[in-house]
């Protein structure tokens, strides 16, 4: 028979063993969870619609969205969901979208390649920033035109640019409208994707817009054409090279709307002409980082927009500020001779 002290001692030993075992188990579980839990995949493409480069670009852009703004934005291209709306809500829950963001901020873009539908599901925490009407506008006026041209990856990237611009606009106006909540209540929008269908030719037609007799007049006429959503690539105010470029390029209603909004508060400096008087630059003060300059060329005695050169020489950063492409050599450098550029091409005073 065990005596009392032996019993106590055995009990203490057993208790200590249990505590140690529990601690070891907890530690092991914690470690294995950290070690085994993979980082949530940003892109899943079951339909093979994305090229490797596009997939990498989306992953990179969405990783920035996560690090810069705490938004957990995932993309899934699937085949044949019976009901995309219901599937999106349940998938959002299943993938715990928002868990990799801050404050439960999450977005899920679902493209059903078989049903030719797209849905951007917006989590509860982001409904304040992305109302359904805005999401529908992004889908229909920005994403779908790229899808029509078969450029699914470009459409996703172009849509993300608008989402970023919306977040920045929220931040600039005093705060990021967010609701402290997780999951999805069914917010967002679904629309027909029209993948691979030909673009609507009516959208590429518009009334003629003559080039101006001064660089300022041409830039002003261009903004008016964009306000009227005139996507005709053959407008008189474009240079010859620009017309060739635009004929191959997808231009969306949302891009035109965004461009008009972007320049609304931009106040230009006086026009700068090169020595020959053939090229002109309209630029904005260096601190106006979201007002990219205009390049114009004199062709046929009228000033025409040289968007072809601008598109190769100018790039936009994650925060939509403009900068010169690294190593870009172009004929409009005279307009920026008094500025220095940092190693990433951002102008400095």
């Amino acid at each position, binding site marked *: 028979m065990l005596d009392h002290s032996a019993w106590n001692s055995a009990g203490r030993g057993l208790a200590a063993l249990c505590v140690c075992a529990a601690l070891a188990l907890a530690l092991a579980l914690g470690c294995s969870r950290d070690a085994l839990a993979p980082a949530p995949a940003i892109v899943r493409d079951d339909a093979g619609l994305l090229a490797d480069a596009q997939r990498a670009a989306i992953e990179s852009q969405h990783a920035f969205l996560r690090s810069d703004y705490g938004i957990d934005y995932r993309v899934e291209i699937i085949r044949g969901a019976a009901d995309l709306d219901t599937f999106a809500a349940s998938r959002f829950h299943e993938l715990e979208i928002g868990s990799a963001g801050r404050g439960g901020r999450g977005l899920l873009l679902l493209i059903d390649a078989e049903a030719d539908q797209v849905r951007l599901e917006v989590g509860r925490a982001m409904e304040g920033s992305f109302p359904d*009407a805005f999401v529908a506008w992004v889908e229909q006026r920005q994403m779908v035109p790229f899808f029509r041209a078969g450029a699914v990856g470009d459409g996703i990237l172009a849509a993300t640019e608008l989402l970023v611009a919306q977040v920045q606009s929220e931040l600039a106006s005093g705060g990021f409208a967010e609701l402290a909540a997780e999951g999805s209540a069914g917010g967002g*929008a679904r629309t027909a994707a029209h993948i691979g269908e030909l673009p609507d030719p009516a959208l590429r037609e518009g009334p003629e817009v003559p080039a101006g007799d001064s660089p300022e007049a041409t830039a002003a006429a261009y903004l008016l054409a964009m306000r009227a959503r005139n996507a005709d690539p053959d407008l008189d105010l474009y240079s010859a090279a620009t017309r060739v470029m635009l004929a191959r390029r997808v231009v969306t209603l949302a891009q035109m709307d965004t461009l008009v909004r972007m320049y609304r508060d931009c106040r230009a400096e006086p026009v700068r002409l090169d020595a020959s008087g053939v090229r002109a630059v309209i630029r904005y003060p260096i601190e106006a980082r979201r007002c990219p300059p205009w390049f114009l060329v004199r062709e046929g005695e009228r000033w025409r927009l040289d968007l072809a050169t601008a598109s190769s020489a100018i790039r936009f950063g994650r925060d939509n500020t403009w900068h010169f492409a690294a190593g870009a050599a172009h004929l409009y450098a005279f307009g920026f001779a008094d500025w220095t550029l940092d190693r990433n091409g951002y102008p400095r005073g």
Partner: protein
Amino acid sequence: MSWETSGGVGVPPIALGQPRPGLRLALVAIGVLVPLLAGFALHNHVVSRGEAVDAAWAQVESAHQRRADLVPALVETVKRHLRQESETLVAVIEARSQAVRLPASEHPPASEAELSRLGRAQGELGRDLARLVAVAETYPELRSADSFLALQAQLEGAENRIHVARLEYNDAVRAYNAAIQQLPAAWLAEARGLQRRAYFESDEGAEGARPLGLE
């Protein structure tokens, strides 16, 4: 009695088979406390399931209200373009009026019949709205207008929220009903007169306008 006389070496002479009075008291206390705590836990579980149902119901009501709030703006936008479609407009206004006339409540309707009546009123509104949007879409000028696109998107979003809220409500009801039907919670439910809650049947009332998908 000294410890030495019991032959021990400084050990109390109590055998393991004879618990001390303190230990006996502790066993009795455990015998009483454990069932009591288990009862509390069971009660709290049932209460929290019931509260989850009420919370899910609040989401359903909020989603219904969201849709009803969109109707005046939609009717106003469409009215400017569809003067000859007054019957459709009147039907929508009537259906909205019927739907919002039903009193809002913190708790969901207790009976299937009452829930079904509410579902029918909401369903009528959903179907009339779908009809109105379908008619509006035949007018190219209206269909391409951003203001109409925005309203249509908000309406579709409201319909989808109703659908999701009802699914979540049904899930909460399913969990609650299961909780009060399983033993021993069933005894507690019977003692407290807790009734099983009603489900939405096959998404009744939300199906009318769900095919509003944007084109």
